């Protein structure tokens, strides 16, 4: 048993012990965990990322919902303990299906079990990998002149150049991107572009932008997985590669950027591992919509609601974001990054990105 699992086990057993002691004393069992909302995230000056603040919520067996959550916690805990004991691991989805047999403790949706796994990370200060849990989604793609040393299933070490040793779809980020799995042996890029959509990623690949601008292209696949964010963070922190984020111009894309640069509300306990504080936004803005006269769609009701929420989100409380969000609400329009094709397929690599990167001081 590895030390990290042993430690996780101790932490988990402490939770059970706590509940047991409350029962023995005749108290209604409860658990306290940090409140996971935008009202309880604080900027960590030292690490430059947003993390959970001091506010805590109580989950009490006095209410049916709370009682169920405590029971689920115990079931999950027992499940993890057994996995560690048997040296097995499972995906989050598998655990969700296994919960079918947890009677009153079963989950109704996978989002519930995922969330509880995150709660356990927060309470124990461990990572879900310590619990032998992994996400089922595959990682995103990367193309560019860096070389990674990856240990494969057979434990053999392989060196892969992410431009020369891969096909058009690039190198796929595995779910574990920690030191023990991946090392960066050679990095010959000036910066890294994280791209929201597959369509735009493929456009930049076809136009050879990685070579033209000597950069690394990373596909975010919408809201990026933990491993993608962790990979970007390591490249930035360990190899000193500047990061820019290229997204659509709508409220959801702004959130994608913020989870890369500032940390996501859902996983604010991991911000120091996942967030890249120096990342810059070069995605479509409301100003771009006007300046480049891009084809647009009208904002929907949920779009407008999301934008107004962002105005109250401490992570967006900067002059740049306030201006752009307010302008977007004013013009009531959004645009996709592929809308740049209005001026031809090469426009994005010939005009838009060079202009944006120059502004950012990277070209």
């Amino acid at each position, binding site marked *: 048993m590895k030390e990290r699992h042993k430690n996780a086990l101790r932490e988990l*057993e402490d939770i059970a012990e706590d509940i047991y002691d409350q029962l*023995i004393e*005749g*108290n*209604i069992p409860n658990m306290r965990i940090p409140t996971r909302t935008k009202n309880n995230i604080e900027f960590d000056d030292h690490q430059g990322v947003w993390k959970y603040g001091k506010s805590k919520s109580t989950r009490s067996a006095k209410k049916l919902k709370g*009682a169920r959550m405590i029971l689920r916690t*115990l079931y999950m805990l*027992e499940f993890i303990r057994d996995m560690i004991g048997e040296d097995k691991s499972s995906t989050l989805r598998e655990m969700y299906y296994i919960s079918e047999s947890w009677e*009153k403790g079963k989950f109704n949706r996978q989002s519930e079990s995922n969330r509880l796994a995150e709660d356990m990370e927060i309470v124990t200060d461990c990572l879900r990998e310590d619990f032998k849990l992994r996400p089922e989604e595959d990682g995103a793609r990367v193309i560019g002149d860096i070389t990674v040393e990856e240990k494969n299933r057979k434990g053999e070490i392989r060196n892969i150049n992410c431009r020369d040793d891969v096909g058009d779809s690039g190198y796929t980020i595995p779910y574990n991107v920690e030191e023990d799995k991946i090392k960066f042996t050679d990095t010959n890029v000036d910066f890294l572009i994280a791209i929201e959509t597959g369509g735009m990623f493929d456009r930049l690949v076809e136009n050879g932008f990685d070579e033209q601008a000597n950069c690394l292209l990373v596909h975010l696949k919408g809201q990026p997985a933990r491993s993608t964010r962790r990979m970007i963070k390591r490249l930035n922190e360990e190899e000193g590669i500047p990061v820019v984020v290229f997204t659509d111009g709508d409220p959801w894309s702004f959130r994608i950027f913020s989870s890369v640069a500032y940390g996501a509300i859902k996983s604010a306990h991991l911000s120091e591992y996942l967030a890249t504080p120096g990342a810059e936004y070069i995605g479509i803005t409301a100003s771009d919509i006007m300046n480049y006269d891009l084809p647009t769609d009208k904002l929907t009701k949920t779009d407008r609601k999301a934008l107004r929420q962002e105005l109250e989100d401490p992570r967006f409380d900067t002059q740049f974001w306030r201006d752009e969000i307010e302008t977007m609400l004013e013009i009531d329009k959004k645009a996709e990054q592929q809308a740049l094709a209005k001026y031809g397929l090469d426009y994005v690599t010939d005009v838009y990105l060079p202009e944006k990167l120059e502004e950012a001081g990277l070209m």
Partner: protein
Amino acid sequence: MDSIAERLADKQKEISVGEFFERNKHILGFDSLTKALVTAVKEGVDNSLDSCEEAGILPDIKVVIREVDDEEYRVSVEDNGPGIPKRKIPDVFGKLLYGSRFHEIRQSRGQQGIGVSAVVMYGQLTTGKPTLVRSKVKEKDYAQEMKITLDTKKNEPDVLSKEVVLWEDKEHGTLFETTIRGLLRSGKHSVFEYLKNTAIVNPHARITYVRNGDTTVFKRATDQLPGKTKAVKPHIEGIELGTFAKMAKNSDRRKLVSFLVNDFSRISYNTARDICEEAGIEEEMKPRDLDVESCKKLLKATKNVKIMAPKTDCLSPIKSMLIKKGLKNVLKGYRPEFYAPPITRDPEVASGNPFQVEVGLVYGGDLPSDGPVRVLRFANRVPLMYKKGGCATTTAIQQIDWRIYGLDQKGGSGMPRGPVIILIHVASTRVPFTSEAKEAIADIPVIVDEIERGLRECARELRTHLNKKEKRKKVSKKFMIVKDILPMIAEKSASIVGKETPSLDKVMTNIMGVVYIDKKMEWNNGAAEGIIEIMNYTSKEREMSLFIEKPYPETELLDSSREPEHDGDYIEWKLEKLKPSKTSKIKFKFSNLDKEDIDGTDVFIDGVNETHLIGAEPLPDDWGVELADIHEED
């Protein structure tokens, strides 16, 4: 030489009542084919119910409709009423505006239609067929049978044939059968709906409906006949000028004062003199010499003289218990979860006519919950099926903010939505309808106000019910925690830390914090067996007394697992020292109880604060006060 006026008058031809109605069928309720059938049935059924009640007979009415041709139906209504004497049959069925109730002031159904003769006329106009009438009075061994049409020019009956027949198994009653053009539909405005609603407010009637061979029976829910209505003299406040002038003209009284005193209700000799003085008209003059101007002055004068309000004892409301029985009887298929105790308001007066409002409300069960609430409107026990929009009942419903009573309603006005049926009954010696068609009650403020008050009383009961339901839901959630989840939490946490499963008594009482009373009653071999479970889920030891009221005076306590402290109109059990998280049970048996009433007994508790009590009511302050002196007045 004749004056011009006289010559013109010669040209004006008299139009008979019959001809007039022939041209204005809508006034009689025959404006559409679907409605024609409903109206035909309604006229027959209204007559039958009225005559049965007057004769003190529990009505047994059979309505048969059969399609005989395209858009042509044979409709018959048969009753067990007192029957009609031979000589009167032709007039009742063959003469418009003929009827015993037409000139009377009293609460009756009959005032709402033009009469069954209109059906005879409509049938003959649309199919050319006469109406068959059969009637038998108690005194005779045989029945009279006639075929009748109506001479619309003269407004006189034409009897086509007369026969004496035997009517087996019938002591007395009347049957008429007519063939009319119509359309038989189902839905809101159908004959079925009309009969169903009639059954709700006439729980003393048994109504059988045979539609093209399919039989539906609305069973009798009570053997209690409605109180008889009394005919009263008109009250001068509500009288119209024309009626007043006509009464004066036909009066045999020699002096105006005695006319006022004797032909109107609630006018004393002194009041009559005051009216004459105020109008400036000689009190000694003959009433039949009054001209229209003087009549006008007199009526105007009454506004400035204080006249006693009309007596209200001439009305016959359905009353709470029977409304509930009627609703239950007809709506049980929906298994509603709640019947608000129906409200019978005190009588009030609108323009000289006494009226009385009754309201009932039914909630939940299988009633559709996604649409607006359904409203059953009645005037003098007759369903109102049309013109809902322009009715005082609708106005009253819509001006209430139902959200405070727990129903959905957009913006707090308009029709509320939810699984609700509202019943509104307006009884009056003269129901003020919006039009001659008599389909909607006019928006007279005092009537709307009364309806609104009745609705609010029922609505408050609904809110109480919904609050209780909410409270029970919360408790049942707590039960789930205590019974299902907590034991598993204890077991799991114990197994993970490798220790013994802890006792949960204290945690359970901490979570529940209530004394829970669960009463179950079952029907077993003609007796009602009950079990009351008392669970103390509080942290304190409890002492309390349990009370249940006997449903009927003759109900007897046959058996009791615990010696009762008191056994009379109510039963009291004392419970000493029930420890936290302990349960106690009382088993008992009742005799002389109707099967349908076994759920009606509530449990009352003394000794436990209301906030810590679930499944029972705290003992009311007036418990045990003798109610023997208070009787319901008939």
